[in-house]
């Protein structure tokens, strides 16, 4: 199929300004042209269709004022990439990675220097560009991101930390794409931080593709703190080949409305995905989290553990989807979703969905939405702790099983600090 750029002057001029390869501009145009026949994806009990979640701003190259980062809590990690809006502002401590053959490039650099490698994985395995309207809009409007490739037989001992800061001092869509490919028999740990600076009403569309090739092991952690005025579609998708494993640990600490779509496709035999999610909703925000694990290969293991807390008038929906495809003999799908309500005006939902198309499998689920245990609160207060402090301790106990299951102590600690901060802020609205 030939693509006629002349009909799309915005894409043409943007492509020229960043010198992206033709194949990439082609797929942008295809994504754009596919949109009229695509619809917004549906997630059980998550009603987001009327949010300003669709991308509306024109595709353009913009830069951000680096000083905006000064007031943000950015930790000086040993191996670090910091991006603000479309700009990469810091890359440090990456030499040891590069010596092992690991590629870490921002989006433009990756398209320039590793075009073939990017083309092999970009929206090919984990997600298709025309899967739905949001993925198509994403591809057509993508302007920033990171590409990481870990070669075969490479054990990277220390984690890579990234900060992706959305610049909402300007009214632009934030369209961000991460590809993490870990080739066979390799290991990699990654910690991603999403943040917002500024308070313009904006839309974010973020897709993260994690590709675990045979016998690889990936520890993927994220702490998401997008701003109150950012409406977000966040899709993290794992594609797991034979005997690979992904440990997902995600902290949804955003302040705005968000749909989180966290999926793992266990394609190869023996693939294993452990998904841990903690979420806190405060104020009037809505967080809808749809976590799916699909067992395709034999003897695959998919476990989902998600605990969340809701305050004020906020909403939190957890969907846990365990889907076992016919032929996935010996597969195991387990899930637990729990929501703790601190306010009578908050809305919580935990929906277990098991779709099982084979007999020779094991599966189980647990789900609950409940209030704070009054006896626990009374006990803590009877020792002199103010109610809000007591509530935070009970919440910590509630989130404890998820936090304790996170494979990295550093990330566990960081999440605890973020949780405390989000709770203290959230309690101010009570």
């Amino acid at each position, binding site marked *: 199929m030939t693509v006629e750029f002349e009909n799309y002057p915005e894409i043409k001029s943007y492509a020229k300004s960043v010198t992206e390869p033709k194949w990439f501009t082609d797929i942008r145009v295809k994504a754009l042209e596919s949109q009229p026949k695509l619809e917004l994806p549906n997630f059980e009990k998550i009603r987001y269709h009327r949010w300003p979640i669709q991308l509306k701003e024109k595709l353009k190259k913009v830069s951000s004022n680096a000083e905006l980062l000064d007031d943000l809590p950015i930790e000086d990690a040993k191996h670090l990439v910091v991006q603000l809006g479309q700009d990469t502002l810091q890359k440090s401590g990456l030499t040891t990675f590069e010596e092992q053959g690991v590629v870490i490039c921002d989006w433009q650099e990756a398209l320039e220097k590793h075009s073939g490698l990017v083309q092999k994985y970009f929206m090919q395995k984990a997600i298709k560009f025309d899967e739905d309207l949001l993925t198509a809009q994403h591809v057509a409007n993508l302007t920033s991101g990171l590409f990481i490739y870990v070669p075969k037989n490479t054990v990277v001992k220390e984690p890579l930390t990234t900060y992706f800061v959305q610049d909402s001092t300007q009214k632009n869509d934030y369209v961000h794409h991460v590809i993490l490919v870990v080739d066979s028999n390799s290991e990699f740990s990654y910690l991603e931080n999403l943040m917002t600076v500024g308070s313009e009403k904006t839309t974010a569309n973020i897709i993260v593709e994690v590709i675990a090739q045979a016998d690889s092991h990936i520890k993927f952690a994220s702490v998401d703190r997008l701003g109150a005025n950012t409406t977000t579609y966040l899709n993290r998708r794992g594609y797991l080949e034979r005997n690979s494993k992904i440990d997902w640990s995600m902290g949804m600490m955003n302040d705005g409305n968000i749909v989180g779509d966290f999926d793992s496709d266990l394609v190869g035999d023996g693939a294993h995905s452990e998904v841990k999610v903690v979420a806190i909703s405060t104020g009037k925000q809505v967080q809808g989290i749809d976590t799916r694990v699909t067992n395709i290969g034999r003897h695959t293991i998919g476990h989902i553990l998600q605990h969340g807390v809701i305050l004020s008038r906020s909403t939190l929906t957890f969907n846990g989807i365990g889907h076992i495809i016919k032929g996935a003999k010996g597969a195991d799908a387990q899930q637990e979703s729990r929501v703790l309500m601190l306010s009578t005006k908050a809305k919580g939902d935990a929906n277990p969905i098991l779709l099982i198309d084979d007999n020779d499998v094991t599966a189980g689920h647990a789900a609950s939405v409940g209030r704070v*245990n*009054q*006896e*626990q609160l*009374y*006990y*803590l*207060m*009877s*020792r*002199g*702790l*103010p*109610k809000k*402090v*007591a509530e935070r*301790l*009970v919440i*910590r*106990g*509630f*989130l*404890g*099983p998820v*936090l304790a299951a996170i494979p990295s102590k550093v990330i566990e600690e960081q999440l605890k600090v973020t949780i405390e901060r989000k709770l203290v802020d959230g309690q101010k609205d009570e």
Partner: protein
Amino acid sequence: MSTLEIKDLHVSIEGKNILKGVNLTMKTGEIHAIMGPNGTGKSTLSEAIMGHPAYKVTQGEVLLNGENILGLPVDERARAGLFLAMQYPAEIPGVTNAEFIRGAINARRPEDDALSIRSFLKQLDETMSVLDMTEEMADRYLNEGFSGGEKKRNEILQLMMIKPKFAILDEIDSGLDIDALKVVSRGVNKMRGPEFGSLIITHYQRLLNYIVPDVVHVMMGGRIVKQGGPELAKRLEDEGYAGLRDELGLDIKLVDEDA
């Protein structure tokens, strides 16, 4: 010196009247015991003083140094100087014993004068050794998976660390073997002094051999029906509650009477 006065206290739970006019006055420096048969309102009295939300005070007052505390939330009563060692302490996963106790102490201090970790740990170590508690108990989650005896010791550990003006001990002896009973008593006796008063609620006289009270109150049918010295407790142990009831001519059915 501080005083705790309970005046004409009436309390109901789920619409049922349990306390029907309790009067009791105590000062720091004193240990009082409340004895009584099962189901007579002893625990109701302790929960009502502390402020458990399920217990409704329908009449009367509880005064701490002359101020009625019944309008205060639980945490403010605690910071004013009250402590309740509970019969069934809640389990709080995810929060270690040590950080909880430190938090409770710091809740009583100004924000810019928090107790340093070093001096806290020193106090904690010393107190735990008085109670024959192993060090690992400090790092375990609060009461989670504790045995009955461990929970009781842990209540006394908190009492000794927090140093309240008045401590109510609600059946701290239940489920304890004799060695554990001695250890718990040792802890409470160590607290004895002019700035500490305690109201010990017990079913049996045995505990009072180890913590000798200044005053013994006998409670039946939601009221205090008799007061005396330590010898009153001994008499009850010998004669049982039924004897005292009949002597006082009270029309009260004892819960365990049929058994």
